[in-house]
């Protein structure tokens, strides 16, 4: 009898041990929370994955409004926030295998082409986006489209602007309003370095915001008409040669973290080691959240250009909200995200909560919304961002996102920019090598 008991115990122990192994792999699932937002018993529960915690807060606000307005189609939203890479990797596997994908998800622009490869496993959103055509910027709808089908709903325009630390500039006797061209910027930067020993800006090694904006100014792109990579174009050589010259003159310098939108760089900026950043408008929320010491010191201005008259901005970055093919209630999910991202209310909330430049441009003219003195972004910055946005409104260019984009981005950000700014490799040579590498990888 004793022996039998022992045997049973062993079997149980093994089962428990094995079950234990199976369970532990789930622990890194990110943070989940269910938003009820006034939903009743009969509400449908939808799951939503994002990599930006703030996006969840925006959805919570919109969900309350939705549930109040649609008592018969109420929703409970199960929000899971995961780190950027983690979320995209998990989503790609889930979509690929058809198991475990959420109903709704955020996909970042840089990763979007991967999800559009072949036959997209996402629901086309044309029918729900149709009513909002004309009120929102068309190019933002096109950005997440393939062959006429819209698969993702954009969050913001991401107009790239210059952020200047006025305190440092005043010490150096520079007025940022007089900076129009890159030559002006160089002169100002040399003055800043001479007077304060601080760098005017960054030479980014882990992001291509600067390359993109310099290409956009020249009407060029990282890919040709057919979407094939062309990173050794004369325009990009000109752009990087200019940046390299700025670096050689101590106007810009590489930064810890490799670009302004990293934890290390927030610290560098917050301690006042760099005076300027050229970033899409959403960088504002990084200032308010991570660089509290700079409150009241940061001014927003249009970007410098090569020659006066060139377009002074481009739409950088972005997030497309998608509905997966495996969603529980596809129509409900589609209707909800259209409401939460494209409606006028949604666009106003996107500015209020997230500090993004909404894709419904009529919001840009609503003085009571954009100049609300209670708004945290209005309070933080020296001037009102919408004054700048409205000035450059018609100059916002776009860099195409194609199936080659993730590879281009990866090669430039891991290898090429480091070679140029850290090792001093010749620009033309570095870009030729990059072109060859990208072509090899895309083969």
């Amino acid at each position, binding site marked *: 009898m004793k022996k039998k008991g022992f045997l049973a115990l062993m079997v149980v122990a093994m089962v428990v041990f*094995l079950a234990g192994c199976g369970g532990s792999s789930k622990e890194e699932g990110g943070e989940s929370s269910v938003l009820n937002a006034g939903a009743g018993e009969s509400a449908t529960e939808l799951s939503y994955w994002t990599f930006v915690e703030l996006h969840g807060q925006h959805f919570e606000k919109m969900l309350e409004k939705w549930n109040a307005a649609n008592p018969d189609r109420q929703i409970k939203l199960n929000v899971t926030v995961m780190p950027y890479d983690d979320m995209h*990797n998990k989503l790609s596997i889930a*979509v690929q295998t058809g198991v475990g994908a959420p109903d709704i998800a955020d996909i970042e622009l840089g990763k979007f082409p991967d999800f559009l490869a*072949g036959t997209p496993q996402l629901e086309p959103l044309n029918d729900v986006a149709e009513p909002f055509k004309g009120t929102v910027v068309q190019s933002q709808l096109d950005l997440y489209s393939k062959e006429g089908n819209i698969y993702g709903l954009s969050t913001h325009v991401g107009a790239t602007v210059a952020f200047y630390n006025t305190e440092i500039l005043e010490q150096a006797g520079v007025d940022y309003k007089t900076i129009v061209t890159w030559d002006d910027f160089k002169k100002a930067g040399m003055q800043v370095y001479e007077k304060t020993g601080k760098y005017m800006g960054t030479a980014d*090694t882990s992001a291509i915001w600067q390359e993109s904006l310099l290409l956009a100014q020249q009407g060029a792109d990282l890919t040709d008409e057919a979407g094939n990579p062309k990173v050794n174009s004369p325009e990009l050589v000109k752009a990087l040669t200019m940046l390299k010259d700025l670096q050689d003159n101590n106007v810009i310098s590489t930064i810890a973290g*490799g670009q302004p939108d990293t934890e290390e760089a927030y610290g560098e900026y917050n301690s006042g080691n760099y005076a300027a950043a050229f970033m899409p408008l959403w960088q504002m929320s990084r200032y308010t959240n991570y660089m509290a010491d700079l409150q009241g010191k940061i001014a927003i201005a249009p970007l410098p250009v090569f020659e006066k008259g060139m377009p002074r901005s481009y739409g950088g970055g972005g997030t497309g909200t998608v509905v997966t093919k495996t969603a529980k209630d596809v129509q409900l999910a589609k209707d909800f995200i259209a409401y939460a991202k494209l409606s006028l209310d949604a666009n106003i909330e996107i500015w209020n909560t997230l500090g993004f430049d909404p894709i419904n441009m009529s919001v840009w003219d609503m003085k009571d919304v954009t100049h609300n003195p209670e708004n945290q972004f209005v309070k933080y910055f020296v001037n009102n961002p919408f004054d700048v946005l409205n000035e450059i409104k018609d100059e916002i260019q776009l860099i195409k996102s194609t199936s080659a984009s993730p590879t281009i981005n*990866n090669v430039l950000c*891991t290898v090429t920019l480091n*070679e140029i700014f850290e090792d001093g490799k010749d620009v033309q040579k570095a870009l030729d090598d990059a072109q060859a*590498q990208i072509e090899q990888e895309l083969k």
Partner: protein
Amino acid sequence: MFKNFLYSQKVAPYVFVLPFVLVFLIFWVYPLLSSFGMSFQKVTLGQEAQWVGIDNYTKLMSDTIFFKAVRNSGVYMILTLLILIPFPMLFAVLINNKFMWGREFFKSSFFFPALTSVVVAGTIFRLMFGEMEGSLINSLLGVFGVEPVKFLKGQVTGFIALVALASWRWMGVNMLYFLSGLKNIPDDYYEAASIDGASAFQKFTRITMPLLKPTTIYVLTISIYAGLAMFIESMMLWNGNNSPKNIGLTIVGYLYRQGIEKNNLGYAAAVGIVLLLITMVINLTQLAFSGMFKKED
């Protein structure tokens, strides 16, 4: 009937090893065969896989980044072998010495890093080796008048950080293996050697080292495998799988980049098969040289 079956002397051993065999078949043999098949396919998101013959392998042979990853993994493996075998052995002998002061304290403090999560350790090492003046290592160097170093942006300095992390983490574990090996050496041998007038160094080279051989072979085998399969340390140290100029990219990191980040699972499977071949060749050669396959006397 069932009772007879359960009490059967012949069946019982199989019942006991069954869980292992099942786990081995389901989680090892099946994925291995399946990825071997996949390495001859082009697999894209949400679509039927296509057979492409040896295309993945021919592409791999002209892929400079893959060779960079192989070189990184190889160098990392060799460096960890050079550090993580002699030093733990030395520390184990010291700690095993009866005259050593604070033995339990050293034993536990050496082992402690193995208990921390790689994620936490990697993050802390990333901050320690940060390029700012205020990071720990740079402020220490500053005391000696050395300019701040961009550790994680250079090949050599990046590897210093990586190997420092590995040494810190695994020193204690390897030391414990050697300690348990030392416990199995009877004191009589040392006493006899003392009577014959052997010095401490002679005792170490003539008694300790030969008798530790089985332990050393075991540690060597798992270290080779662990070195070649390293991934998380690099990922955490560089806060992602894309280190500048791929200085921290390992073979598994490249597999992850191709398979998970770029959805190119067929190509990633080919990378995995090549990694398996490399590991098998090195491990089997090493085991053959150390006499593992000789018949027991």
